[in-house]
């Protein structure tokens, strides 16, 4: 499958975004805000962005708008809640002697266009209650579902598994 062809070319804003994220990562790792560290952070960010510039098509999926960080925070809240719920659910299954499982593989539809968005959606699906993203094929995501009711079709699966995440991810990724 071609992973990058769906992505358009990144704009100047996306390159600046890349520099900023790399610099932030450097500062977090260095753990100080001295002038030297700041200079090094932005220098390294710029060099790495310049070196990998032609392959940064992945970044084109990022929606650069002032509201995006807000959506990101809301997504993180939903995600953390789902993660905790997933684990209580999984703990119940693991600890119960009879192992209540009804596993099946279903498909889920996504309207996210960028590969970054699909990847994040697949990640979220993997970490939420009883579902595991297996493969991404075009705009379908294969999901292994631990507790699948018999005869679930595409729409039902999409609503049950990915709809809530997709709504939030669309706020900051294409």
């Amino acid at each position, binding site marked *: 499958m071609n992973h990058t062809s769906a992505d358009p070319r990144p704009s100047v804003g996306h390159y600046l975004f890349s520099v900023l994220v790399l610099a932030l990562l450097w500062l977090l790792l260095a753990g100080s805000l001295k002038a030297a560290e700041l200079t090094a952070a932005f220098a390294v960010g710029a060099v790495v962005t310049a070196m990998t510039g032609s392959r940064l098509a992945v970044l084109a999926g990022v929606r650069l708008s002032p509201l995006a960080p807000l959506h990101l925070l809301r997504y993180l809240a939903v995600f953390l809640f789902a993660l905790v719920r997933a684990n209580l659910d999984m703990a119940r299954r693991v600890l119960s002697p009879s192992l209540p499982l009804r596993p099946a593989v279903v498909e889920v539809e996504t309207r996210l266009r960028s590969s970054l968005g699909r990847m994040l959606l697949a990640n979220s699906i993997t970490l939420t209650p009883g579902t595991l993203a297996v493969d991404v094929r075009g705009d379908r995501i294969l999901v*292994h579902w631990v507790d699948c009711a018999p005869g679930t079709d595409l729409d039902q699966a999409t609503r049950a598994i990915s709809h809530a995440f997709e709504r939030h991810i669309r706020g900051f990724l294409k």
Partner: protein
Amino acid sequence: MRLIADLFLLIGSAFAFLGALGLLRMPDVYNRIQAGTKAVTLGALAFLIGAALLFPQWWAKLLCILGFILFTSPVSSSTIARAIYLSGVKPWQARAPESGPVSAEPTEGRP
């Protein structure tokens, strides 16, 4: 403060333990991945929060580790799941449920 931090550490370790237990008890590869990934990821989350409460001056590096685990752990498990799926392993089915067939189309998405 230390008590709260210790509770977080304990919760994290407990979830890591549950994940390992799930790894041992689950009947097939897919369910093992599920149990392993989810529980251990939340375990890491809770444990690292506990560590950050215990040593607040380390928050930046702990945040790096946490972000990294949250980002890569599902990626690696999805990669494994994809490899297993493409190599043709079918999901395990519970036999003889209480009513009717187990699942209408267990392999509906197969190539």
